[in-house]
Structures are given as C-alpha cells and as structure tokens.
C-alpha cells in the first residue's frame, strides 16, 4: 500500500512547531522550574536562593499542618467525587426514563456547568451568608448557628456542597449520553429476562455504564483535587487561618502569601506525581478491564 508522506523533515516540524512551543512554554518549562526551585530555599525578599537538596520535602512530610491538609484533601476529594457521581447518576437515570422531557432537563442542568468555579464559590458564600443566607437560616431552624469561615466543619461543608453542585451537570451529561447509548434492544431483552427494575439496573445498565463511570471517576478526582481552587478561595476568603483547605490551595498560600517558593514548589511537584500516577492508573485500567466492543 502506498502511504502519503513528507519528503523532508522540515515541513512537519514547522507544522508542529506552534503546538510544541505552547506545550514547552506552558507545561514543560514551568514543570522544570518548579522541580528546580523545590531543591532551593528562596529568600522571601527575592535576594537569591540557597541549594538545600531534599530539605523542602523533608520539612513538608514532617509538618503536622501539611499532613492535616493532606488528609482533609483526601476526605474532601472522596466526598466530592462520590456525591458528584452518585447524584448525577441518579438524575441521569431518572432523566433517561422521561426521554421526552430530557432535553429541557439537560439544558437546565447544563447551565450550572457554565458557571465559573469562583462564581460557584461566591454563590455558596451568599447562600451561607452569616446574616441572611437562606441555607444559614435553614440550619438555624434546627438550632445550628452556621458560620462559614469561622467554624471548620461549616466551612468544609460549604466547600463540598459548592464543589458537588458545580460538578454534577458534567457528570450528568456523560451519564445520560452513556445511558442513551445502551442499545434499546439490550434493555428490552433485559426487560424480558428480569422482572426486577433494580436487578436490571445492576446487572445490565450499570456494567454497561462502567466505561463512562470510570472515565468520570478519574475526571472527578482530578476536579476535586485541582479545579476546586476557585471555590476554596472564595469560601475561605483569603483567610486561611484555621480554615479547611486543599493541597492545591496550600501551594498558593505558601508560595504567594508566605513567599516560601521552595516549599511551595516541592508541594506542586508532589501533586504532579499524584496526577501522573492517576493518569497511568487510568490508562492501565481502561486498556485492561472495561472494554466491551
């Protein structure tokens, strides 16, 4: 078979150049710089830096605060991921049943997706406003004095709620299209084979949704780790103090508030390794397990 090809090397390189430059400037260069500065102790006022080897990392792992924030991040990510997926799945299954209304339903839910994370955080702040937030009043009914930014649990709850709310629509869209791509006749065959609706869901629908679900799981973990920055920032209102925060937010706080560029870089290197691990895990599993056709 004849294959179309380039006769010279320069043309393909030229065509790839813009993309390569973008990747190099915005991805690899910062990575290298971060990696490099994680081995240095930066003078807070910008007067040079000292090579300290792995000291930044050793300090981090020895720091009780870092470990506390890391465990909060794990809990936060698990909760956000679980509830975003579970709520979206329930909504998608319901929407799939009333196919006719699905379009309006889908559009309505999609709107939330268009909301930028800081705005989502801001909406959460308004909802939980100390003096007139509707959710604060709601909790007031049960005798709970809800205080965002003061009470650790209340703040964490607001962050989780806003993050879940923001992520449900994306998951919903994926789940719904996953559901609708299950052949109608396969569901009908199940209808004849199994009288129990929940049995059909767990035996047929859910396994067939697994590829979508797994993809979303990774997306959601990444989201809750990184993309919730804007929400955390608004809810915490730049007053980290005793408030809950995620690892990504701590990178920002230490680097730009605390001017500890070395420690902050070490933290971001750790997060990069985490993402790398997640990605490898994702590709491994997608290749291996969850593929039918």
């Amino acid at each position, binding site marked *: 078979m004849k294959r179309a090809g380039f006769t010279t090397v320069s043309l393909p390189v030229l065509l790839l150049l813009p993309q390569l430059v973008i990747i190099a400037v915005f991805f690899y260069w910062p990575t290298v710089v971060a990696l490099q500065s994680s081995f240095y102790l930066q003078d807070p006022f910008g007067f040079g830096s000292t090579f300290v080897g792995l000291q930044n990392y050793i300090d981090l792992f020895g720091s009780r605060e870092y470990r506390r924030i890391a465990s909060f991040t794990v809990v936060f990510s698990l909760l956000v991921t679980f509830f975003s997926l579970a709520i979206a799945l329930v909504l998608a299954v319901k929407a799939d049943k009333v196919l006719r209304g699905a379009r309006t339903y889908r559009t309505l839910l999609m709107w939330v997706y268009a909301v930028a994370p800081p705005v989502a955080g801001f909406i959460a702040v308004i909802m939980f406003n100390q003096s007139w937030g509707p959710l604060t009043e709601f909790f007031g009914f049960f005798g709970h004095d809800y205080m965002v930014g003061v009470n650790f649990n209340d703040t964490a709850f607001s962050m989780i709620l806003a993050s879940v709310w923001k992520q449900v629509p994306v998951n919903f869209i994926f789940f719904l299209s996953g559901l609708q791509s299950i052949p109608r006749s396969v569901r009908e065959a199940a*209808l*004849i084979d199994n009288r129990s609706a929940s049995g059909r869901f767990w035996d047929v629908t859910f396994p067939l949704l697994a590829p979508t679900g797994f993809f979303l799981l990774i997306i959601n973990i990444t989201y809750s780790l990184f993309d919730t920055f804007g929400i955390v920032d608004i809810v915490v209102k730049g007053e980290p103090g005793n408030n809950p925060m995620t690892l990504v937010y701590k990178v920002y706080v230490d680097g730009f508030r605390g001017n500890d560029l070395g420690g902050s870089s070490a933290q971001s290197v750790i997060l990069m390794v985490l993402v790398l691990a997640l990605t490898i895990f994702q590709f491994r599993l997608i290749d291996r397990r969850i593929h039918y056709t």
Partner: protein
Amino acid sequence: MAQVQLNNIGKTYPNGFEALHPTSFEIAEGEFTVLVGPSGCGKSTLLRMVAGLEDITSGELQIAGRVVNNVEPAERDIAMVFQNYALYPHMTVRKNIGYGLKNRGTSKQAIAQKVDEAAALLNLGDYLDRKPSQLSGGQRQRVAMGRAIVRDPALFLFDEPLSNLDAKLRNQMRIEIKALQRRLGVTSIYVTHDQVEAMTMADRIIVMNAGRIEQIGTPSEVYHNPASTFVAAFMGAPPMNLFPAKVTDGQVMLGDQPLCAAPAQGAVTAGIRPEDFTLDATGPLSMDVQIIEELGAHRLLHGTLGAHSVTVHVSNDISAATGLQRLSVRPDAVCLFNATDGKRL
C-alpha cells in the same frame, strides 16, 4: 386451545399515528405463524405489543389463556429473539443464555445443565466462555436462540432474526430455526419482510399492509388464493401478474381474448401467476418477449401482453426466444379481484 389470542388489538402511538388498526386472530398451540408485510406496516408494533414492550392501546391480549395486557414482559412467559440479537455485551455466552433463568430462581446446577443442553443443541459448546464481541454474526444469532430456548417459554417471538446475516447463512439458519421449533413444539410468531422466509417457514402466514391484516392462511392458500391484489403482488418472486380486464357476455376479457367465466359485471383485475402460463403455439394470447432471465432450473420471460408488462415462468427444457410468443392459461388459474378496492371476487 388457542395459545395466543388477540381481540381487537389496536395501537396508536403517542404522536397520534395509528400503527395498527383493531385486529383479531388466534394462534394454536405449537403453531409457527409468520407475520409478513412491507416495511412500516406494523409487524414489529404488533409483535412488541405481544411481548409487552409496547403498550396496548385497545383490545385484549391472551397468552396461554391468561389476559396479559397489563402484565410485565418478564411475567408473560415469552422469549424474544431480536433483529440485532441484543446480547448482553459484558456477559459471556454462558451468562447470556442463563441470565433469564437466574432471575427466575432456577438453581445454579439446573441452569448449568440447561445452558449446556441448549449449547449442545445449537453447536455453541466451544464458545460458552466467550463474550459476544468475539463471535461471528451466525454464532451471535445462535446465542440469541439459546437464550430463548433455555427458558422453555409458552411463546417464542422473533423480529426479523435473520436479516443481518448473509444469504447463505440465512438459508441455513432458516432451516435450523424451523427444525428447532418443530422439535420443541413451542408456539412461535416470526416477523419478516422476506416473503421467501414466510413461505418456507410458516404453518400459517399473516400478511399485513399499512396497519391492517390483508390475509391469514397457510402458505399455499396465501400463494394460490390471494385475498387481495396486495397479497398477490407481495407474495411470490416474481409476483403475480395483474391485468385490468373487462367483463363482457359473462366472460373476463383480456384485450379481445376471453380468459375465464366472470362472476361479476364491469371492470375487474385478473391475476395470473407466472408459472400458470404455458408456451403454446396455438394459445390465444400473444406475448412480446423482450428479456429472458436464465435462472438455471428455469427461465423467466419478461415482456408485454397487449399494453401490460408480464412475466412468464417456464422450465429450462422449453426453448424460448425473444419476439412474439403465443401463450395459453388454464381458466381455473386466473384469480379475479375487484378493480376498485383490490379485494378478491
């Protein structure tokens, strides 16, 4: 006893389209009934209502003596084979076949035994641990059959199960399905738009057109005594020749030649099967043969008779040539239809 009974079953879709006009018929126990008709005539609609996959708008449906209008598909004691097989892609062949049994509380041991029996019957023994994606079209078709037969239901439903197979495999599976049905004796409704499948497989054929039943009868009745010009033209390949004819002096006249005695006055449509013509040098009819189609065992002569096109079927030991040929027809081979509504006279 009627295994399936439809009393004035009708279907109007939510968009207001009446896909099936109220229809009644019965299917006897063990009978293989084929629903045939052109695309969009409502065959699948009817079958899916029997299966319970589509709501019944009006009328009453009985399966094995029980009214099942509002009974869930899983409780109707039916099994269905779908056009695209509808296998569960994430389950092995073994699980696919056993799934319906598992949900009916059959013991693991009994399931294993029944699955093995079905697999043996369908030559699927070597594939039990494969996923559907690792099977050929014909094998998938067999798995779908297996899934239906392990259940030992009161009624089999087939919706064009062979239409995704190539011609050779289709002929083979046609015979296999028919033989299997004979052997198991399970009442069956089989939907197809292929009249050859209908003729070869059916105990009884139901010919449908535009949401109505045109005729119910054995393959031979439907072929030799079509109830309408629609059936005459739909069944048979090539179909029945239809000519507008006039009645004069009690005789049906094709052009100026009398064909047979007429039961009515005025205009009629005369139908003659291609094989009911004979080439006969002294025959009364004159055909202008334009194309001869060689089909091995026989030939088809295409041409015109007066102003109308006509197809004549002759065996290959009769020599034929293009140009004018004389034909004769037995008077009892002519079917007469009402010229306005196409109904049989």
